[in-house]
């Protein structure tokens, strides 16, 4: 529903934009000459690079596709505001309609009814470029609202750059609390759990293997590929299709993986709780996001047998399973931490103590079950809870992370909260043990450090955090305990200069929800 409202707002904003006289902010931007079309996840407005960048403003403020944060980024990329840049004229205003790959794409009939005609279907980025046949009307808005395939619609702004300049090199900041990943400003969750403060001294968990048991992982994603576990050419296993190519066809697992360990300070996309870690890609959920408990069990056993230290599980179901419980117990006996999402129920949540979802409600000693909080430290309206069965809260509303095909998206759910804890566990494991190993002692230590150092939030104290061994009622994940007052000067900081660059994929991000 929110998405639909957003589309409406976007398009209505667009209508206003087209109807009114619009003042334009103009920037020159430093970049290298290129004949390529370039897209930027930093700037939803950018598309063409032929000599000039233009970001539109309305009544002195950026219109809906240029939220404040993006404008700052835009300004930082601009050499100067250049009023001499001529207006863009005589060019048909176009729309970019991002579509949901699973829901298909807007049909020809939809476009005709909306008074639009397709110019190009950019399938790699999952969006259509369309032009209005005549004028955009309420019918356009209504038609797009009624098409389930439409995720996002926005004007296709004209952007161009001088052809005789080169990329402006941007030194990676010495202050590693602020990584160079361009979507950093949207990652409120990392700040909420104080991960950024820890990164000054601890950000590398490359010896820790985190299995993402989910819809698979896009192990070719530029923000993930350097943090993917590999053994004999395999990056995990696919028990949905029963092969060794656990490529994500849905997106959910890739999003979870990005929160755990999207490569940090690489000038692209997002950053995970760990800048370095080994993501083991496990797939048992199909393209529709569902799967069988039997295949989940196989994933757990496979990941444990192949050395995973942490299992990240952002899935659940209402039916108890002896086999699933046994698999988690086997992991427990090997010393593997099992992080589980508490589950979602729209608007109301659910008490897992009285109406359990599994595996979240299992009471194994190696389990951390995670509820979702929002940017205000309030419980997500959907989050499952339970004083006994849920252990801790973590960011799970408006979480931006990686998606297949070099895209990024913002999602809600306890599925997004659990990877924050899984990533934190990996970071804690790497700090606590020079040689991470599957042992009950190490696993217990990591679990206790996570739970005992939770930040109590009074408003959440009736929701979770009452079970042993760590009783922090209303506790929220917080890595502040890892912060060291003085960074170790002998620790090398691998920060080569990186290039602020455009990325040739459009971020699937709804800018209005990022404000």
């Amino acid at each position, binding site marked *: 529903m929110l998405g639909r409202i957003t589309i409406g707002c976007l398009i209505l904003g667009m209508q206003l934009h087209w109807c009114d006289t619009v003042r334009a902010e103009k920037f020159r931007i430093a970049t290298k000459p290129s004949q390529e079309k370039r897209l930027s996840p930093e700037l939803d407005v950018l598309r063409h690079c032929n000599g000039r960048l233009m970001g539109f403003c309305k009544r002195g403020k950026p219109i809906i596709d240029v939220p404040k944060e993006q404008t700052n980024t835009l300004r930082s990329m601009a050499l100067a505001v250049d009023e001499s840049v001529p207006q863009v004229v005589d060019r048909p205003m176009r729309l970019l309609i991002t579509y949901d790959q699973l829901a298909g794409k807007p049909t020809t009939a939809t476009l005709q009814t909306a008074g639009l005609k397709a110019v190009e279907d950019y399938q790699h980025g999952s969006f259509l470029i369309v032009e209005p046949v005549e004028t955009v009307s309420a019918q356009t808005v209504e038609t797009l609202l009624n098409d389930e395939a439409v995720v996002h619609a926005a004007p296709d702004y004209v952007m161009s750059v001088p052809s005789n300049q080169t990329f402006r090199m941007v030194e990676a900041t010495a202050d590693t609390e602020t990584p160079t990943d361009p979507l950093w400003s949207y990652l409120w969750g990392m700040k909420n759990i104080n991960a950024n403060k820890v990164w000054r001294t601890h950000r590398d968990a490359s010896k820790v293997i985190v299995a993402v048991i989910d819809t698979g992982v896009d192990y070719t994603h530029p923000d993930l590929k350097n943090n993917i576990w590999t053994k004999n050419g395999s990056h995990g296993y696919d028990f949905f299709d029963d092969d060794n190519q656990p490529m994500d066809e849905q997106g959910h697992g890739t999003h979870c993986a990005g929160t755990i360990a999207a490569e940090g300070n690489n000038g692209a996309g997002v950053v995970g709780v760990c800048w370095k870690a080994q993501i083991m890609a496990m797939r048992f959920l199909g393209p529709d996001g*569902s799967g*069988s408990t039997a295949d989940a069990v196989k994933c757990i056993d496979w990941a444990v047998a192949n050395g995973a230290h942490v299992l990240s599980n952002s*899935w659940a179901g209402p*039916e108890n399973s002896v086999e699933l419980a046994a698999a988690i117990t086997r992991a427990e006996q090997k010393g593997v931490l099992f992080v589980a999402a508490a589950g979602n129920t729209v608007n109301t949540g659910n008490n897992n103590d009285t109406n359990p979802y599994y595996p979240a409600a299992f009471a194994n000693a190696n389990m951390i079950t995670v509820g979702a909080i929002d940017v205000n430290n309030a419980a997500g309206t*959907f989050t499952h809870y339970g004083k006994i069965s849920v252990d801790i809260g973590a960011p799970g509303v408006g979480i931006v992370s990686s998606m297949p095909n070099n895209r990024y998206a913002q999602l809600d759910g306890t599925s997004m909260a659990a990877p924050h804890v899984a990533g934190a566990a990996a970071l804690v494991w790497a700090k606590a043990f020079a040689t991470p190993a599957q042992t009950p002692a190490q696993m217990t230590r990591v679990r206790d450090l996570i739970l005992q150092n939770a930040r109590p939030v009074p408003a959440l104290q009736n929701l979770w955090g009452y079970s042993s061994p760590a009783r922090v009622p209303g506790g929220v994940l917080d890595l502040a305990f890892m912060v060291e007052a003085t960074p170790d000067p002998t620790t090398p900081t691998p920060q080569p200069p990186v290039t602020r660059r455009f990325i040739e994929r459009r971020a699937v991000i709804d800018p209005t929800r990022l404000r």
Partner: protein
Amino acid sequence: MTCFTTLGMILLGCASCAAEPAGAKPTDEAVHVVCHGRLLQGVVAIGGDTTGTTVSFDGMTWDLKLNDQLRQQLAGNELRQVTVTGQLRRVQAVERPYCVVDVEKLIERDPKAPKPKAEVTVTGTLALPASNTLPKSISVAGESWPIVWGTDSKLQAQAVALAGKTVVVHGTAEANTEGGSKKFPIFHIEQLQAK
């Protein structure tokens, strides 16, 4: 044999529902379905967005909402092929939109028997197209379901005449392959009457 014994047990458990003939027209806005497919229990999904039981057929998978009695009767039984009768609705969950059938009746079916397409009887309001064309969707309790019409010119003319009105339509449910979507079905309408 065990499975067919279960069949009787489940039928008994739904005696009141079984009295309703298949394809009966519901009185309020609803999508009434009769489908035949493979039953899977112990289903999990991203974010827990599932009822835990599904039926899969013809490229579609629908979650099944079972009452306690049916749930207890199914527990431990290895039913594979079933016929499900109930009301279809959409669930806009947090992480995963999906279809749910509120099950009224569930019986085991012979896997070797011919499998008909899923039948739907929909009471709802036909969309009012911009011009004098065929309605492309039917609104049922606030949810819009895509529909297509056959080549029957009489049926098409009737559909145009009843656009914007409350009707009862009957047809089959098929995977919405346009754009590769398998989330929600598309209804192929074969019969139409004003309500």
